[in-house]
């Protein structure tokens, strides 16, 4: 699979069909990968496909000028579609190298399962529905659903729906939608006050690094509302009130664009369970309007469209 990707990428650059290839290269730490953005066909040999290709590379599309060949998992391809819907990316400007993805391994979860840090783990391997973690020469097996990312467990498009070249066979996914929204279910079960207390506690940690925004392909505004000074919607000092307000408004802004790729939660250095917010928003949008982000490149973006009759029961 990897070889095919490398060959295709090399060919695209050689034939001048693209100016850039965006893909994944091995990371500098164990069980990591890093985005590779290159014009050099020699770099194509560094491209990898493995269960750690976590980044949603479509975030780079809005800033790169030129034609791009981009490696995209199912969720990433939906982000690209969403960007096409928003006129941020021209379909003909990208060549999508679709990579079927049977789910990504959440290293934090693996760490917790074996009680060791990432660099103390010898190996993590996947065999179908089982994931084996080796520590100190001892191999322990876990059901894949316990080690994959939450967002992967409810993935509806493990094989990209939008692509130009598909690398490999369509993927099967060990889904567990219930497990995927377990945190949301927990929150929904709490009384209102307790929920608010929960988020208050979480956003007390927020340091306003804005990684959630920067990593999000749907956050493509040239200037974010949080940086406006007149009026100043959100106070720049990182106190929980404004941190939370920033995040609520951000998620309202990406409603209908968020494809549940889970990047915001992964990027967060202080472990705020952001996906419990974004995924919930996705559910709200689907429940009320039967709209799913990034599934139809011809569709009007969610917040700029309407039906004559919808959601009337929420308004007096």
């Amino acid at each position, binding site marked *: 699979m990897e070889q095919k990707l490398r060959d295709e990428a090399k060919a695209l650059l050689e034939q001048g069909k693209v100016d850039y290839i965006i893909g994944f290269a091995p990371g500098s730490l164990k069980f990591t990968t890093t985005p590779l953005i290159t014009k050099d066909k020699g770099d194509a040999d560094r491209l990898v496909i493995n269960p750690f290709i976590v980044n949603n590379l479509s975030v780079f599309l809005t800033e790169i000028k030129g034609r791009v060949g981009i490696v995209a998992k199912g969720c990433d391809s939906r982000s690209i579609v969403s960007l096409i819907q928003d006129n941020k990316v021209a379909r003909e400007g990208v060549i999508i190298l679709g990579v079927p993805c049977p789910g990504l391994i959440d290293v934090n979860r693996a760490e917790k399962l074996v009680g060791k840090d990432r660099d103390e783990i010898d190996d993590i391997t996947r065999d179908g529905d089982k994931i084996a973690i080796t520590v100190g020469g001892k191999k322990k097996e876990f059901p894949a659903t316990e080690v994959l990312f939450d967002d992967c467990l409810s993935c509806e498009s493990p094989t990209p729906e939008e692509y130009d070249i598909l690398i490999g066979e369509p993927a099967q996914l060990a889904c567990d939608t219930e497990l995927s929204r377990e945190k949301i279910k927990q929150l929904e079960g709490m009384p*209102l006050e307790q929920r608010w207390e929960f988020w208050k506690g979480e956003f007390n940690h927020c340091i306003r690094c804005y990684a959630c925004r920067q990593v999000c392909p749907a956050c493509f505004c040239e200037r974010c509302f949080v940086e406006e000074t007149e009026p100043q919607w959100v106070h720049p000092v990182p106190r929980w009130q404004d941190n939370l307000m920033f995040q609520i408004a951000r*998620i309202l802004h990406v409603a209908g664009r968020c494809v549940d790729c889970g990047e915001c939660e992964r990027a967060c250095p202080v472990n705020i369970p952001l996906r419990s917010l974004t995924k919930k928003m996705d559910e709200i949008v689907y429940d009320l309007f039967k709209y799913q982000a990034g599934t139809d490149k011809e569709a009007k973006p969610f917040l700029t469209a309407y039906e004559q009759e919808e959601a*009337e029961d929420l*308004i007096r």
Partner: protein
Amino acid sequence: MEQETKKEAKWEPKLLGFLCRWCSYAGADLAGTSRKKYPANIRIIRIPCSGRADPLFILKALRMGFDGVLISGCHPGECHYQTGNYYARRRIAITKKFLEYLGIEPERFQASWCSASEAIKFAEVVTDVTKGLKEVGPNRLFIDEREEHGAKASG
């Protein structure tokens, strides 16, 4: 911005209304001139269309200490700009659901359609929303107990 203090003997909710100038704002006017009684708890900001009501308005109002927010615009099909209220409707719907999920009492954010001639409806809506706010009590969402006690918040 004024702040409610616990010391005040009788607490009255503060409701901030964003009213479309073509309908609800005129409706509020009509309610006044035709002497329809509605609670004085509402402070009104006139907006050109309910489609102008950014969710940030709601958040900022709650952050500033308003107990509730009301957005009111033209009935579907009656927008002065043809479609503004349709867009507003989607935003209102997702905002309402989302705020509730976060733990904000649904009474704190309400929306209504109310035409220029519906003075009675407007008065009813405001009365009803105010009643709801009285039931849920003062907005303490963004108040930090630690800061109230003068402790230093730190990283």
